[in-house]
């Protein structure tokens, strides 16, 4: 029995809708074209697999085929896929359009590999990813779904991360240290998400960049804290964080100018942004207390959870609550030491988690409504 069927049975049993209405809803849901997402998912999987297969074939570097012929076939395929995408768009075939688009975007990456192979260029993978993301930014923007933009955003952010660490242009700024780079990348992603939202609305590219902002931000907080775990407190100076400040300022400006959020929601986001920057600067002030990092991450997760609740993003809100719970657990281990105390700690933590789950299960509606009400 599907989730919809269960809900419909419940509504019929509670006299909210009639049997006839339930049947009409079932028929409508079963025959509407939205079921094509399953088809879309498998087609995308197939196209992505073919694309990776083409990369592998190119990587095999066939000795018997002249270089000119390899390039000719490659460009002929690129033109065929681009033309196919265009005609699919024109004839309003969204699934065919997206499948051809994903094949095209992957073949573009394979083509960079082929050119690199034929002319023996010594470039790094991040350089190929950056070039690819620059030339295919428009293709990602043309997609109406989320998979192509997500692939694009992943390539772009990985490319820019490794460029910041390895490129001679950025090395004097970031000094090959992960912490300022980790701080900066989610801010770039956040700014791009705001720009995409402003220019193109709630499209796939906005969603992809927003997902990477949240994921990257959480990873960055872990990296900031790992500085302390590795017992390394290196003061890199303000210059290493300067690009981060610029992107943070622009992101703050974007949040301030946003028409999507209420005033209180903007304050919450700005508070999260401000708190996010804090732990990366602890080495600068020689702050090495684990509790300071813990306080920051707990505060960031809490403000973000309240913000998400105010947007009625229940699933994301719950994910942040779980992260908050895990952070509390880690804090407990950080604060205590020794087998006996850890044993007691585990028992107490387990009890607290079970108690939290019980309380959450019983009062979740009230808690969520309260959090939503905070910013009403």
């Amino acid at each position: 029995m599907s989730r919809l069927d269960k809900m419909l049975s419940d509504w019929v049993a509670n006299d909210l809708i009639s049997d006839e209405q339930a049947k009409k809803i079932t028929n409508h849901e079963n025959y509407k074209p939205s079921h094509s997402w399953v088809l879309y998912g498998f087609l995308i999987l197939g196209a992505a697999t073919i694309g990776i297969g083409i990369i592998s074939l190119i990587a095999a570097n066939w000795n018997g085929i002249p270089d000119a012929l390899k390039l000719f076939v490659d460009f002929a395929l690129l033109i065929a896929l681009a033309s196919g995408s265009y005609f699919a768009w024109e004839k309003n075939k969204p699934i065919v359009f997206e499948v051809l688009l994903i094949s095209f975007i992957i073949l573009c990456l394979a083509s960079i590999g082929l050119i690199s192979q034929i002319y023996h260029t010594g470039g790094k993978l991040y350089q190929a990813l950056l070039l690819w993301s620059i030339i295919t930014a428009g293709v990602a923007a043309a997609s109406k779904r989320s998979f192509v933009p997500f692939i694009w955003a992943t390539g772009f952010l990985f490319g820019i991360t490794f460029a910041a660490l390895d490129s001679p242009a950025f090395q004097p700024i970031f000094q090959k240290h992960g912490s300022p780079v980790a701080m900066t990348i989610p801010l770039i992603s956040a700014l791009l998400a705001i720009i995409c939202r402003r220019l193109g609305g709630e499209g796939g590219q906005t969603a992809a960049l927003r997902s990477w902002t949240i994921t990257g931000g959480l990873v960055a907080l872990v990296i900031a804290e790992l500085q302390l775990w590795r017992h390394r407190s290196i003061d890199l100076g303000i210059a290493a964080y300067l690009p981060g400040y610029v992107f943070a300022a622009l992101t703050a400006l974007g949040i301030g100018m946003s028409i999507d959020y209420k005033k209180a929601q903007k304050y919450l986001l700005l508070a999260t942004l401000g708190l996010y920057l804090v732990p990366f600067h602890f080495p600068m002030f020689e702050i090495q207390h684990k509790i300071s990092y813990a306080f920051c991450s707990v505060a960031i997760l809490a403000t973000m959870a309240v913000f998400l609740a105010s947007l009625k993003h229940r699933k994301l809100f719950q994910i942040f609550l779980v992260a908050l719970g895990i952070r509390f657990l880690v804090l407990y281990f950080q604060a205590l030491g020794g087998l006996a105390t850890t044993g007691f700690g585990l028992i107490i933590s387990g009890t607290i988690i079970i108690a939290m789950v019980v309380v959450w299960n019983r009062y979740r509606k009230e808690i969520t409504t309260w959090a939503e009400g905070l910013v009403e």
Partner: protein
Amino acid sequence: MINSKKGLLIALATPIIALALLAGYKKYILSVGKEVTLSITGYDPRDLLSGRYLVYTINYGIGGICGGPAYKHKKPGYVCLEPKNFTYHKPNNCETMIKGICNRGGFEAGIERFYIPEGEARKLEDLVQTNDASIVLSITRNGKAQIKDLLINGKSWRDR
């Protein structure tokens, strides 16, 4: 975000044009550059995107490349082949120079890889290590170098 025919056409044509320009530029360097042959020693790793390749050390026949004070970060450097010399600044009286980057005491000019067919990788690795191997380069006036061929005992690897 792109909802017009014109926008979609531009978005789809941009990567094709950019890739064609990239391939054309590489071909141009090969056709206009000065040909130089340098000896090498090497081994065989793998690149996920472009396949197998030989990575080697190029013998420029010049001492003190990327020497001097140890630099913390990557820094541009110039190897002058005629007359033989190395400098961190663009040399004025150099007939043939290669522009690169000093990284951890090594000189990198983007010519330290030679892509080879999957089936030939092991044989070529052995040949490079047991014979006189060299690479043929095409070098432009502004110091951009590109690989033309790999030679084993003076013959192209394809003609062995």
